[in-house]
């Protein structure tokens, strides 16, 4: 009897769905992608309470050395020589949108004087909502964050 040789099947790895998966991931990245208007590198203070900051908020960042950068929320932040420029920018922003939120992104080690001047400028410009940008407080930072211990009286 003549035995017919069975048809040999080619061994292939099915890759047709790989593109679907990859494009799904791309769509995910595209949807979640946000343009960061301020890329100033600062060491943020840690807090237990952290509320979501509204999108397109204006930014004021202060580095440890006291360099101030501002952004109205639409453009990339730029350095300004003093807090008085913050007042100018905030006045313009508030006149266009009185409910605009401002994000204060200050280094935790910056002397309070710089922050005080910026907050004062925002108050004078009649800004209502300010968010103090922070990072998540961890157990370590909560324990080690308390400075000074039992104050030396």
């Amino acid at each position, binding site marked *: 009897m003549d035995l017919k040789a069975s048809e040999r099947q080619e061994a292939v790895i099915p890759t047709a769905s790989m593109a679907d998966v990859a494009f799904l991931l791309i769509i995910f990245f595209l949807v979640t992608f946000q343009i960061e208007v301020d890329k100033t590198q600062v060491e943020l203070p840690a807090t237990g309470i952290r*509320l979501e900051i509204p999108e397109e908020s204006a930014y004021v960042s202060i580095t440890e050395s006291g360099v101030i950068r501002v952004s109205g929320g639409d453009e990339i932040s730029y350095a300004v020589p003093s807090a008085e420029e913050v007042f100018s920018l905030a006045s313009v922003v508030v006149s266009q949108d009185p409910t605009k939120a401002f994000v204060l992104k200050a280094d935790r080690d910056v002397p309070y004087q710089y922050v005080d001047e910026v907050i*004062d400028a925002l108050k004078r410009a009649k800004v209502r909502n*300010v968010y103090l940008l922070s990072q998540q407080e961890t157990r370590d930072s909560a324990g080690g964050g308390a400075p000074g211990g039992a104050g030396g009286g």
Partner: protein
Amino acid sequence: MQIERKNKVDEEIPTSSMADVAFLLIIYFMVTSTFAATRGLDFALPEEEDNPPMIEKEESVLIEIQATGQYMVDQQPMRLDEILDYLEPKLERNPMKPVIIRPDQSAPYGYMVDVFDELRSGSEKGVEVKNISIPTQREIEAFWY
């Protein structure tokens, strides 16, 4: 004579390189995207008034933050975790009691945020501090007495 038919070539759109392109795009997005902090403490600024209400010093609680990071609450040195316990009986008598945070100008900003966060988190511990004020140096010079 019988002419042998040529092997028929299957029609197909070559998609094998599509995955390569897609993964390249993914790598690009992964490399360029950053994890930006988008959360923080909300800090509602009061409306600036020409004639702000005067608060008697005795009515408020003053939390001073010294440059060294020590906290003085009504002139008494105190640890951060003791402040809410100190405030609790005062707030029971007067829930709207003003609590004023006054950091030294050279104190690191992080200490002010620590105190502010501690006061704000009081509501979770049953000590809600409703009236927190952080006057600026200009306001202190103008209105402090």
